[in-house]
């Protein structure tokens, strides 16, 4: 053991056994005295004389004991404790000061810890897999656009796996997909993750019981599935005999073979029911066109990301040569798994962290300001203590201990506010990943402690230095206090007030810009009327009797039963009382290329492409999408009639710039198959935005669900199988919504008992969800800016109040000499205006530089929007002046007699 460790250990032991230590010391000295006494007696002294001689020879027993004891204690710690007790007593004497400081620090620290806990959860906490830092995602990238990344074709992923040496293994997985399931206990929309059998081993997780997939268990008509703990609980009531139970997933008979532990879930922490196996080598994916699984690889021990990048690039190059039709110009890109999941989150979160640091700085400045004022009023106290022999260091330490206590108290209360903050965050957040996993863990606690201590040092250092510099003579001559109350102190306080305003200005500009963006987003013209519309998602199962898989497994044939189902459903729903109109639209955009008949065909890779949506004819009327020319789809567009299509304005503008599109014929090609018949354009409708933050409209072709082919490649039959029912209520939603939902569900159940209905929400909710992140960001920034404004106002008020108190004497003289009320007001207001103008100017300059970091998060406003800057500046100025007003008015009421006698 090194010397200092021995030292500390011995001292700690003495501290813990203080009584035993004292007794031992007593014994040791007693033994010495007794021995000496005995020797003296042997020399012939009387017992009494011997005892006295022994004592004499020993010296001052009490003093030596004290010396020895002191040696064993932590003198530093004990004086620190004394300082803390003293500080606590002094602070308790001014409860208002204490409350304001602790509360503002707690707000600042709590805001920081809340945002830190979000950062911690999504960015800093390691992923819950074995050696998560060895996991990499491999993307396909277009070599001509190095920044592009796309999920690889399934067959490419399978080839990567066979050819790699740098990765131990590569698994393919989807994110969470919704898929209909049916079985005992009714139909529902299950949340499934499609994975290759090696997925679990790659992630390093084992099932709670049962097994995971073996090499290949994905069959066309039956499969095994592994279910989540939550699903096992919900669907099987934790039945221990769940293994071997079967149900249908997308029409495929599925047998449960394993249950995963509750700790293993979906990538972003959302609910997940089961894992469904994918056979990446199946002939089904041989076209190399199924880009819906991501590839995750585990690096071999010792292998690096750059080695992986080089190897994957080489493999991609080989695939380019082997499959030129699909892989020409396609490279590979390796990215750490954590980055792939959360890399983009920092863009939103770091500006928020910056904002809360700003709030904390304001709180610190505020506290420093108050502490500074307090130190000045305590100058006499410090001077007296200094003249009685207290060292400057001791005085400084006293003040630092005081601010330390304030910081820690703020931190303790801040932790409480963090719990509240996390709850608030969850309430505001829509679809935020991992929101449920946000918590105050040890890292958040350590962060809070660090923030509290940093706060204490920031707050306490200025007054401490001031106190150390105090001039004894000046301070002790009480009469001069009023006129010379430290030019340095006054300047410090003014600088603090200015920086508070400047910081508040930065935050308010940021909040102003994002709120402006949010307002614009919420008032985007979507091109349709979302009010009083309710959405229901439906998806008929991907199996018998609706879908038949043709020999070879690659082609799915959709039965006419699907169209019949939707047709009957539309009839039933439109008959529900209170329903004004009902339509359907395919929720997935299966865009593709097309050719216009009569135009020379462009080369294969230059074909124009468009979005493509399958709708029911009543869709446009239900959403009130305006008709520009031609006609809507209608009852005449039946399977037997010539096929028709309606396009939107941007389609017409882009592809028929100088001609009338009506009457033109085109052939759509999607799912890599040409449609059976060409379609004639019969109408042009207005552009529609499904996402509020959409930058520009995209060309869309709409066609009726009744005029569709039957054969689809891969999963493309979903265009027909899945539909969103949009129902416009004549009587408005609100109280009628529940009845409408029940009636629609009943209509579905009458047609197909196991058919789940999900995604039930109003169109307005669905739109709001598309700007969830912007809303969250703006709301949080708004809250932080309001806190900042409040703190800054308190700061200004404090400064001005102090200014007035300090000058009561001077103002009294002025009033006695006949100064008018206005000129006194002017005296205070001028200073207030000077401070706040300087603060606003500095803040505006800072903001000009800083708002650039949130430029990407803004919509419809530039980061230097002059209107926002001007409005925030003026607002802040008027609040600052308001904060001056109360002290200023008090100044005008100064009674000259009282003021002059106030010596």
């Amino acid at each position, binding site marked *: 053991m090194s010397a200092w460790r021995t030292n500390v250990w011995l001292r700690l032991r003495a501290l813990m056994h203080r009584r035993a230590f004292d007794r031992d010391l007593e*014994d*040791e*000295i007693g*033994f*010495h005295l007794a021995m000496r006494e005995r020797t003296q007696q042997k020399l012939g002294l009387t017992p009494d004389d011997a005892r006295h001689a022994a004592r004499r020879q*020993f*010296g*001052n027993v009490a003093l030596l004991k004290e010396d020895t004891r002191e*040696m064993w204690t932590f003198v530093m710690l004990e004086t620190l404790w004394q300082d803390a007790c003293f500080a606590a007593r002094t602070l308790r004497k001014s409860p208002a000061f204490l409350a304001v400081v602790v509360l503002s620090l707690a707000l600042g620290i709590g805001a920081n810890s809340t945002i830190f806990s979000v950062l911690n959860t999504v960015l800093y906490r390691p992923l819950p897999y074995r050696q998560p830092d060895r996991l990499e995602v491999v993307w396909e990238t277009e070599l001509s656009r190095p920044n592009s990344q796309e999920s690889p074709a399934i067959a490419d992923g399978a080839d990567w796996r066979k050819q790699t040496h740098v990765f131990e293994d590569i698994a393919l997985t989807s994110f969470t997909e919704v898929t209909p399931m049916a079985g005992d206990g009714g139909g529902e929309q299950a949340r499934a993750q499609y994975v290759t059998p090696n997925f679990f081993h790659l992630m390093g997780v084992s099932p709670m019981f049962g097994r995971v997939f073996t090499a290949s268990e994905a069959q066309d008509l039956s499969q095994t599935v592994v279910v989540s703990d939550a699903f096992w609980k919900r669907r099987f009531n934790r039945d221990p005999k769940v293994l071997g139970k079967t149900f249908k997933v997308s029409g495929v008979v599925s047998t449960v073979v394993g249950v995963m532990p509750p700790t293993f879930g979906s990538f972003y922490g959302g609910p997940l029911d089961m894992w469904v196996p994918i056979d990446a080598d199946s002939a089904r994916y041989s076209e190399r066109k199924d880009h819906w699984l991501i590839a995750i690889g585990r690096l071999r021990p010792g292998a690096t990301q750059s080695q992986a990048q080089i190897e994957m690039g080489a493999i991609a190059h080989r695939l380019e040569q082997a499959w030129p039709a699909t892989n020409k110009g396609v490279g590979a890109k390796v990215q750490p798994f954590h980055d792939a999941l959360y890399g983009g989150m920092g863009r939103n979160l770091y500006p928020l962290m910056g904002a809360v640091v700003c709030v904390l700085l304001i709180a610190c400045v505020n506290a420093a300001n108050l502490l500074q004022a307090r130190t000045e009023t305590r100058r006499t106290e410090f001077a007296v203590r200094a003249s009685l022999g207290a060292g400057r260091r001791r005085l400084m330490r006293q003040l630092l201990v005081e601010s330390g206590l304030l910081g820690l108290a703020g931190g303790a209360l801040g932790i409480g506010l963090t719990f509240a903050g996390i709850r608030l965050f969850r309430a505001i957040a829509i679809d935020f990943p991992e929101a449920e996993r946000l918590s105050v863990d040890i890292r958040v606690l350590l962060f809070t402690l660090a923030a509290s201590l940093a706060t204490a040092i920031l707050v306490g250092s200025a007054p401490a230095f001031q106190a150390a510099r105090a001039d004894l003579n000046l301070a002790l001559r009480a009469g001069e206090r009023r006129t010379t109350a430290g030019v340095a102190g006054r300047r410090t306080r003014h600088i603090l007030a200015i920086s508070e305003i400047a910081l508040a200005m930065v935050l308010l500009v940021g909040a102003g810009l994002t709120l402006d963006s949010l307002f614009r987003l919420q008032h985007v013209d979507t091109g349709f009327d979302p009010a009083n519309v309710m959405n229901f998602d439906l998806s008929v199962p991907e199996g018998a009797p609706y879908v038949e898989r043709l020999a070879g497994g690659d082609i799915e044939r959709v039965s006419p039963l699907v169209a019949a189902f939707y047709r009957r459903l539309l009839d039933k729903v439109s008959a529900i009382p209170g329903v004004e109109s009902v339509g359907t639209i395919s929720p997935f955009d299966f865009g593709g290329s097309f050719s216009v008949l009569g135009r020379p065909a462009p080369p294969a890779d230059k074909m124009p492409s468009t979005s493509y949506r399958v709708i029911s004819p009543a869709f446009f009327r239900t959403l009130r999408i305006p008709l520009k020319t031609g006609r809507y789809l209608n009852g005449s567009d039946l399977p037997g009639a010539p096929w028709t299509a309606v396009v939107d304005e941007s389609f017409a503008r882009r592809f028929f710039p100088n001609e009338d599109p009506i009457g033109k014929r085109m052939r759509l090609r999607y799912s890599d198959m040409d449609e059976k018949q060409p379609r004639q354009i019969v109408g042009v409708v207005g552009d529609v935005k499904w996402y509020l933050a959409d930058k520009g409209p995209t060309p869309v072709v709409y066609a009726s669900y009744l005029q569709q082919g039957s054969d689809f490649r891969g999963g493309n039959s979903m265009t027909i199988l899945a539909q969103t029912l949009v129902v416009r209520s004549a009587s408005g939603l609100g109280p009628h919504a529940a009845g409408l939902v029940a009636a629609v569900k009943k209509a579905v159940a009458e047609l197909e008992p196991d058919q789940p209905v999900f995604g039930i929400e109003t169109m307005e909710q669905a739109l709001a969800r598309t700007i969830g992140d912007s809303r969250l960001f703006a709301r949080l920034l708004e809250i932080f800016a309001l806190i900042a404004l409040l703190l800054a106002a308190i700061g200004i008020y404090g400064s001005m109040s102090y200014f007035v108190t300090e000058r009561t004497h001077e103002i009294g003289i002025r009033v006695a000499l006949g100064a008018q009320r206005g000129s006194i007001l002017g005296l205070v207001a001028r200073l207030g205006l000077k401070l706040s103008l300087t603060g606003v100017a500095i803040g505006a300059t800072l903001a000009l530089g800083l708002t650039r970091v949130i430029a990407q998060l803004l919509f419809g406003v530039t980061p230097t929007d002059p209107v926002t800057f001007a409005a925030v500046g003026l607002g802040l100025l008027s609040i600052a002046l308001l904060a001056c007003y109360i002290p200023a008015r008090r100044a005008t009421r100064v009674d000259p007699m009282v003021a002059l006698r106030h010596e």
Partner: protein
Amino acid sequence: MKDKTNSGELLRDTLDMLVLKTLTRSVMHGYAIAEFIEEATDDVLRVEEGALYPALHRLELRGLVAAEWGVSDNNRRARYYRLTAAGRKHLSAESAHWNRMTAAVARIMEA
């Protein structure tokens, strides 16, 4: 924890060195150490006996000696001190320093 004056420190260091040197002979309790120093110097160095105890505790805290409770010849509970490896090292450094010092002083006094 430090003494206030330099002269005190000098005395203190000398006492420490004497205690350490004494302990090279055997394990001893405080009284025996005091006795030994007095006898060996023919009572020339009669330190105030009490001062020995702060010194012993200081050495213990610095890890130069280790202490243990034992039973004395006359069957009383006594605290026995033993030189540690660190103490032995410290002593040899100190005595080398001391020898250089005294030799230097002696050269001046004899000149």
